[in-house]
């Protein structure tokens, strides 16, 4: 076991954060700048500088998120994709995902993405309902979203969309309509999120003021359970709390996070896990740029985690995967036996019907446990 002490997984994944957006939506707390296209030139130089020192590693997955990566105009997009291609070597059969907003999708852009090797598109659709889209401050219509999905499916093939449920004022019927529209589209993957009110967002203060009200908890639970049912009937397999995929279309990049693999990351607010260190870049785009330009390190927070913490995190985040986790694999890869150090908390979760043991050394969330994943995770974290 001693030999494992300082062996950390070699990153085989990379996340690039593009902070630019046309508009910051009321619920969004990501590292984003709206209406600051003047910073794009500086950003391209800065992120290129940040990536240069990595020495063009081979990665299995690339994920370009935001913000809105497709907010770049076609020329800038061309340069950006070219830069990414220079800084990383995507392994054979690698997965390269770009997040995109429906209103940015043109056949020109989508063709460009495909030419550079982007083979997965994640579209921030959120809803097809005009009222809900307006409330969420999204800039597209149902028609635009549908067209974007169809175009992306035709050119890129592997398309995922994000949908938000439990928005203020939304009923179960509203949500089921959104789902029905979604499953008619040529999708390989769906992520569904209950709207979360994050501190520091306009939605948070609007809710504090009483201006916005979330649907009740039981309505939210109903929406979630119906989602699982409806998507299962359409052959989307529920493989993580908020992720559903057709046969082999699971998002490999996200799986890397949940399975405790290492990954590189660059751009403002981006989080990486390299050599046992969890690091987050400065969230402010301008600070990030200043730091990069003056030769400083863009990292705002660094945390060197212990082996035990590593094992606990792998268990806590891994258990969010519906198939569960193989504790033996976890032990052999971390040197820590979760079955031992968490025996009480696992036992408690089992006795409360939150966790099941499908086969020896495996644990997974039960039907009920899926609704209490935070409770289970919290116990595993100790």
């Amino acid at each position, binding site marked *: 076991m001693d030999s494992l002490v300082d062996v950390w997984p070699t990153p085989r994944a990379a*996340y690039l954060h593009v902070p630019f957006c046309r508009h910051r939506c009321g619920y969004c707390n990501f590292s984003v700048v709206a209406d600051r296209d003047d910073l794009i030139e500086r950003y391209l130089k800065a992120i290129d500088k940040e990536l240069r020192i990595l020495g063009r590693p081979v990665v299995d997955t690339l994920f370009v*998120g935001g913000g809105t990566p497709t907010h770049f105009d076609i020329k800038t997009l061309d340069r950006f994709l070219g830069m990414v291609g220079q800084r990383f070597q995507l392994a054979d059969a690698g997965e390269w995902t770009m997040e995109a907003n429906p209103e940015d999708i043109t056949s020109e852009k989508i063709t460009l993405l495909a030419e550079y090797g982007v083979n997965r598109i994640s579209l921030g659709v959120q809803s097809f309902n005009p009222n809900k889209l307006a409330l969420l401050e999204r800039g597209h219509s149902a028609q635009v979203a549908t067209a974007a999905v169809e175009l992306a499916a035709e050119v890129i093939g592997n398309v995922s969309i994000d949908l938000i449920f439990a928005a203020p004022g939304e009923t179960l019927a509203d949500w089921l309509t959104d789902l029905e529209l979604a499953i008619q589209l040529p999708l390989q993957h769906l*992520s*569904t*999120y*209950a709207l*979360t009110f994050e501190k520091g967002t306009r939605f948070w203060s609007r809710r504090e003021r009483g201006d916005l009200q979330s649907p009740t*908890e*039981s309505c*939210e*639970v109903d929406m*979630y359970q119906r989602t699982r049912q409806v998507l299962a009937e359409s052959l989307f397999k529920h493989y993580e*709390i*908020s992720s559903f995929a057709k046969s082999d279309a699971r998002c490999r990049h*996200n799986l890397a*996070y*949940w399975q405790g693999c290492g*990954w590189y*990351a660059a751009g403002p*607010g*981006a*989080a990486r*896990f390299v050599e046992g260190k*969890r690091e*987050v870049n400065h969230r402010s785009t301008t600070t990030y740029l200043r730091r990069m330009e003056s030769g400083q390190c863009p990292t705002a*927070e660094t*945390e060197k985690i212990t082996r035990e913490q590593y094992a606990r*995190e792998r268990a*806590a*985040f891994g258990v*969010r995967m519906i198939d569960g986790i193989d504790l033996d694999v976890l032990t052999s890869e971390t040197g820590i036996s979760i079955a031992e150090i968490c025996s009480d908390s696992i036992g408690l979760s089992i006795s*409360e019907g939150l966790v099941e043991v499908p086969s020896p050394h495996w644990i997974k969330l039960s039907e009920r446990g*899926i*609704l*209490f*994943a*935070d*409770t289970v*995770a*919290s116990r595993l*974290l100790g």
Partner: protein
Amino acid sequence: MSENIRNFCIIAHIDHGKSTLADRLLEHTGTVARREMKEQLLDDLELERQRGITIKARAVAMDFKLGGKTYELNLIDTPGHVDFQYEVSRSLVCCEGVLLLVDAFQGVEAQTVANAYAAMEHELQIIPVINKIDLTHARPDEVAEEMMNSLGTDPDECVRVSAKTGEGIESLVEAIIAHIPAPTGDADAILQAMVFDSNYDDYRGAITYVRIMQGTVRTGQKIQFLRAGTQHEVVEIGRFVPHRESCAELKAGQVGYLICNIKSIGDVHIGDTISRAGSGAAEPLPGYARPKRMVYCGLFPSDGQDFSELRDALERLAVNDPSFEFEPETSDALGFGFRCGFLGLLHMEIIQQRLENESDIDLVQTAPNVTYEIVNKRGETISIHKPQDVPDPGDIEEFRQPIVRCSVIVPNDFIGAVMKLCQERRGIQQSQEYLGAQRAMITYHIPLAEVVYDLHDKIKSCTRGYGTLDYEMVGYEAADLCRLDIMVNGNRVDALSVVCNRADADRRGRAVAKKLKAEIERHMFEVAVQAAIGSRVIARETVPAMRKNVTAKCYGGDITRKRKLLQKQKEGKKRMKAIGNVEISQKAFMAVLSDNEQD
């Protein structure tokens, strides 16, 4: 010598200007120069106030020349909160006279009356003093008349002063010398001295405050504390002028201090008598009647780790305040703490305030309760200091509660409101007297529990702050009382049990259940909050089970943030108290305990 001594104290309602008057007297007698006054004395007093201990019975000796004679005037300060009959009486025993100080605008207040009666009981010479005559709204003539009506003092004898400006202080000093009798007591007799207070000096050990009743005490003398049975050698003797100033001896009638190398202040018992060591000691003085604690509450540190700190702090307070007692108590809900007994509500508030100020301990206080008496089926009478000790209804023959005589002084406009309030609180009116054209004193017999519950606050609010309340024990009377329990999923929450009138049980039970329900976080199962008398449930509220606890999205950047969030929530859980399988935060208890059904 002793014919030139005058021992007196000042009794007054809070804010009627006692401290300012004391300052003026010190200044007028030249004990403290006006220049030093602000720098020295007030700072010192401020410090005393911060520590809150010695201020209760500060003694100052002032030498003053009048008509060719030098007088020794000893001012023995009574506690700042003069409604402590017990503390006041400690000072009174050492005096021959009192200055009864009344504000020229506020007039006679409930506590003024109580203190004046106490002085009369001790057969002390009373000098009525009307203070603050410089105020624009001063009404000294009316106040003199109020004093005559309520206390029987002669309006012509009232000395009118302004402690602020110094007006009238000269004639007050003359009145003290002329009217207060000199102490009697033979300086050659066997030593007999009253211990009326003590404090602790880090370098000198215990400082014992004494009034010499008879005999003389000298440095180097062997003395004994009669009640404690301990012997000591006197290392230093002195007077307070107002700082400690040593002298060779203290004679009958004098007031001062002794330092005897006593390491622990716990070895000095207030009310003890000092005499010479060995055989042939003087008779012990009557001492002080042991105070009766009428109000009890539990005090718990809000963080369990402060327990020993709280114990130390309580010990420190108890040493200088023997009227306060405490014993360890364990509560399922609040952990380790103490059940504390107080003379009354104000006493309780002051102790609590001191604990928080002096020791920086966050306290959780259970609802105050009075001492009940229960006659059980076997005919035994038991005193009950905490609701948890009330036996099952089936074992109670008679449930008795303390009744107090409540005096409320109010402006005439508010008489109706106060009477209505007192009646609602099961009061029985005894009398109503008009003190002057503006104000009246209303007297009721009311269960002490009602007074403790919220009567004082309610009187203040229904009289816009003008009403003042004082009370004294009358005795115990049987009443239709019951213990009201609060249960969480069938388990009794000991800290929330109260004794109340059966007729109020429904209302109070519902209110507490409702409030507690709102404070309990949802669990994975349903939580029932019930109010019950014995096995009979009278109110129920339900905290529905949590249906989910899952955060939808979790991407890479979230891992650290989310882990911290989950761990923070867990930390919060650790500090919760478990009642059965239900976790309740301390905040919840505090919310339920702090405001008694304001809704």
